[in-house]
């Protein structure tokens, strides 16, 4: 960015926040900052949300359509990629800001909607179907008749601190992050605070780990700080791998510098000169944005040797996890960083004593880290204003499954579970809420009657639920609970590292028990049904053994989904076992097939294929399925050329 003879860049901004007098004119810099914050625009800007999630919805195509639109008409308009504002179901999202006017957000902007929407907007007409709302700003003239975002239920019901800039700033620009106050906490810390000061502030704030455990972060740091060693490491755990959880990916993609600043502060606080950021190789957009952010921070002198002459040096290394669920566990993650199989190790020794390469190491979840710059900037007391007595601050949740709006939200800890379902606007029309599954494969599910349970670490634990990392899946009456927990157990048995027997064998057996009750026995003689029911009784004791004897959290928590489902949905288990029925018609092997007499031509193809000879009839007249013999395999359905076979 040029201004007079000097070039304004991240370094000038860093100097500005440090109060270093440079040759540049201060008012030039302030002007630059207000342009970066888009308070003052010289030309129209179109902003497209490009994230892992929106790309699946066609955001790349939308962006090209915008580029074409601008090129064809030879318009002088900027295009900027931004992150996500959390409204994932409304993707692709596009914002438009015309100089002097408020920034406006459009939803579901497919490539071929672009000309229509831009034609309208540039001529003062906003297509109502696509408008979400407008940003509130004193400096801009609002659009008439368009709601402000902070009036919309989705945003009104949230408390956005970590996500304050998500979807607003360009994740590719360190300048924009600094303009909004970024890196001020880090520069303040290394120039004015001692290591103990930082640890104390974080401890006082009451911040607890967001990776599931809920350990007090400041205390963890102090444990590492107290160790004497020639080298300490900080590791940021961004290996989000719960199926159905996507909040950390979107958070990082929307504001990567917040993470880099958090890592820098944490490393300073524990005296680490080397930090690792471990995310998944698969998350290519996340990886690319983090790599770029690290590089920009180096270029601006915020990382590297003797940062801003403070005497503190820091190297941040991005590692791309090759994909293993168990590598989210801290000791397994450390093994993976060392170039080994990601198998967990016994604790103690804790990583804070003997971690990466045998040195004191702090492992923190990426959301924990995202809180750090904000706590230092606004103060520990401010952070502690939100949340409950023992669970302070806000928490990110991704709400998906059978909801109207799959979304990423940030709410203060202590709100009820129903708040999250309401933010996602409930289950689809005509359906009934059945259960809410929290904490991924190591969590549990709860029933609608318990929806007023406050979300904090202690209450959830007491209810047999888990915060996990914050993935929430909403289930309606089309979902079979047994099938859902079978999915989780299958995931666990596949991802079990195999090091300890309770987890490796236990999860496998558990899967088999669940499999056996979702399948019709080929012959049901003797005490077969009773045997299967015994499986359920054994599930409970098997779960206990796994919980008590597994090496790491993976095996210890694996039975949770099963136990909580047994508690709340016992009838559904019994229905599967005794009636061999799946009310939601999801367990396919429990289906019974029927033949539509009007469509059947009597070709006898299905009867010949049926493994249990359950289909009888005479050629050239409609066939019939003997219900008692049918094992629900579905061969008849795939064999039938006339679509005459159906199931209930």
């Amino acid at each position: 960015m040029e201004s007079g003879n000097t070039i304004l860049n991240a370094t000038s901004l860093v100097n500005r926040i440090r109060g270093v007098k440079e040759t540049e004119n201060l008012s030039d810099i302030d002007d630059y900052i207000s342009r970066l914050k888009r308070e003052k625009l010289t030309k129209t800007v179109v902003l497209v949300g490009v994230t892992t999630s929106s790309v699946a919805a066609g955001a790349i195509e939308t962006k090209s359509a915008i580029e074409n639109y601008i090129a064809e008409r030879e318009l002088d308009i900027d295009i900027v990629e931004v992150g996500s504002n959390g409204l994932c179901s409304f993707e692709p999202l596009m914002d438009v800001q015309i100089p002097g006017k408020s920034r406006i957000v459009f939803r579901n902007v497919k490539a071929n909607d672009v000309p229509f929407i831009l034609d309208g907007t540039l001529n003062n007409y906003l297509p109502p179907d696509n408008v979400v709302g407008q940003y509130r700003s004193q400096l801009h003239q609002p659009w008439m008749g368009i709601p402000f975002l902070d009036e919309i239920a989705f945003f009104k019901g949230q408390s956005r601190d970590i996500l304050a800039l998500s979807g607003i700033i360009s994740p590719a620009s360190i300048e924009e992050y600094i303009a909004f106050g970024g890196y001020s906490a880090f520069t303040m810390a290394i120039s004015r605070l001692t290591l103990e000061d930082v640890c104390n502030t974080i401890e006082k704030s009451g911040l607890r780990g967001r990776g599931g455990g809920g350990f007090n972060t400041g205390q963890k740091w102090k444990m590492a700080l107290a160790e004497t060693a020639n080298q300490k490491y900080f590791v940021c755990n961004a290996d989000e791998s719960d199926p159905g959880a996507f909040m950390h990916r979107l958070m990082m993609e929307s504001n990567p510098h917040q993470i880099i600043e958090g890592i820098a502060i944490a490393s300073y606080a524990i005296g680490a000169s080397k930090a690792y950021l471990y995310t998944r190789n698969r998350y290519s957009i996340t990886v690319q944005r983090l790599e770029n952010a690290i590089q920009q921070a180096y270029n601006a002198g915020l990382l590297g040797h003797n940062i801003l002459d403070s005497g503190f040096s820091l190297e941040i290394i991005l590692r791309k996890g090759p994909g293993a669920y168990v590598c989210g566990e801290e000791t397994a993650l450390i093994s993976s960083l060392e170039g080994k199989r990601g198998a967990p190790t016994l604790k103690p020794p804790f990583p804070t004593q003997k971690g990466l390469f045998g040195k004191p190491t702090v492992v923190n979840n990426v959301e924990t880290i995202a809180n750090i710059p904000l706590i230092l900037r606004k103060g520990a007391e401010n952070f502690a204003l939100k949340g409950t007595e023992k669970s302070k601050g806000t928490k990110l949740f991704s709400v998906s499954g059978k909801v109207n709006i799959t979304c990423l939200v940030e709410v203060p800890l202590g709100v009820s579970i129903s708040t999250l379902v309401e933010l996602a606007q409930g289950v689809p029309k005509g359906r009934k809420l059945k259960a809410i599954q929290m904490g991924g494969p190591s969590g549990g599910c709860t029933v609608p009657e318990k929806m007023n349970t406050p979300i904090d670490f202690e209450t959830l634990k007491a209810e047999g639920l888990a915060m996990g990392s914050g993935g929430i899946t909403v289930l309606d009456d089309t979902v079979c609970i047994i099938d859902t927990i079978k999915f989780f157990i299958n995931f666990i048995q596949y991802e079990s590292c195999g090091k300890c027997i309770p987890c490796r064998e236990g999860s496998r057996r558990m899967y088999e028990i669940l499999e056996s009750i979702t399948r019709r026995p080929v012959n049901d003689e003797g005490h077969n049904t009773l045997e299967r029911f015994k499986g359920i009784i054994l599930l409970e004791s098997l779960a206990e053994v796994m919980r008590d004897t597994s090496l790491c959290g993976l095996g210890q928590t694996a039975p949770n989904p099963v136990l909580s489902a047994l508690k709340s949905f016992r009838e559904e288990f019994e229905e599967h076992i005794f009636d061999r029925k799946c009310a939601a018609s999801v367990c396919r092997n429990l289906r019974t097939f029927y033949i539509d007499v009007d469509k059947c031509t009597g070709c006898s193809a299905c009867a010949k294929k049926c493994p249990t000879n359950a289909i009888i009839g005479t050629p050239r007249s409609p066939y019939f399925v003997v219900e008692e013999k049918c094992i629900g395999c579905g061969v008849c359905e795939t064999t039938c050329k006339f679509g005459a076979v159906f199931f209930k």
Partner: protein
Amino acid sequence: MVEKILQKYSHAGRDSLIPILQEIQDSIGYLSEESIEMLSTHLNLASSKIYGLATFYNQFRFKAKGKCHIQVCHGTACHLLGAVTIIEQIEKQLLVKVGQTTRNGNFSLEVVSCMGACAHSPVIQVNGVFRSHLTEATFKELLEELIETYRTVNK
């Protein structure tokens, strides 16, 4: 290509093993036997150890991808919306098994634990391109299109 990568890591230790394997896979598409042998000599580490590590992680593959590489998301949201049927149908219609490549090298199929696009499930990726909100009809159309395209490729 593998030599070039190894040159870059001339003084690498064990902790660089994963990044090196990732670079090899990025450049040649999979971990070939030769590349593992070379790496084993380079790092002075038994190739069995390298295999032991590589087979542990989901990312690494030991066979080339098909011309058409299909990745199916099997996260919770996609599971609820029929990911299992999608996987079954692909296996049945394209005659490919999960984790494998067809003998003619046309198709390969991979199941991924969660793509993070839960708002747009069920999702799959065909050669890196997302197909989202699949319905019975659009999925059927997609399969037909793929069969048609790769049948002509073979001729």
